[in-house]
């Protein structure tokens, strides 16, 4: 299992369109990908858009990512990059 930390940097936060991008990328990996928001103790399955949206994460939110599976390293890289680039909204 690999663990990473990402920050929501795009002004609109983890809204529907950003979440849809995340789910699409997450869905392209076979690993299980879990997001955890420690300030509210919420968890989300990164492959489910409704689950991701329920994190209600605005700009500035820090999320922990837990990934387990045979493509976990690449998944962590791709997802970290997605957050870092603000889902292309910066």
């Amino acid at each position, binding site marked *: 299992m690999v663990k990473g930390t990402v920050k929501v940097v795009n002004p609109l936060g983890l809204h*529907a*369109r950003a979440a*849809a991008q995340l789910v699409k990328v997450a869905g392209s990996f076979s690993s299980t990908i879990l997001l955890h928001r420690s300030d509210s103790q919420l968890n989300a399955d990164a492959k*489910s*858009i*409704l689950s991701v*949206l329920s994190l*209600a994460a605005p700009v500035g939110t820090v999320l922990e990512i837990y990934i387990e599976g045979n493509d976990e390293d690449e998944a962590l890289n791709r997802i970290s990059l997605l957050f870092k680039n603000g889902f292309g909204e910066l």
Partner: protein
Amino acid sequence: MNKVGGVIVSHGQVATELLAAAEAVVGELSHIVAVSIGWHDDVELAKGEIQRAIEQVSEGSGVLVMTDMFGGTPTNISAMFLKKNEVEIVTGVNLPMVIKLASHNKETTLSELAELVEHQGKQAIYRTSSLLEPQSEK
């Protein structure tokens, strides 16, 4: 197993716009169609439209009809098509329900999916102020 089809039925253009909004989020949804029933539409006409919509999306694994309001005409007409393992109806459609239906996998049966969509619709309603701290004014 084929995907369960979906039909959204509403008063006015609500169904069409809900589908458009869901497609903006998750991409094109070829297995879901919208039926808008005009305020003055004839019941037989509306019934025919719903029937055609159900047939259009049916691929043998059943069709989930989502209507706007329990007790309303769209629901009452749709109820004529209720059939075990073929047509299920869930009322009170909202955007998370459409997205739930859009993102289910092929292994989910019609009755399981109807239950999931009903649960999702209820779970997706929040009084936001009870969850979020108010944004501090800057």
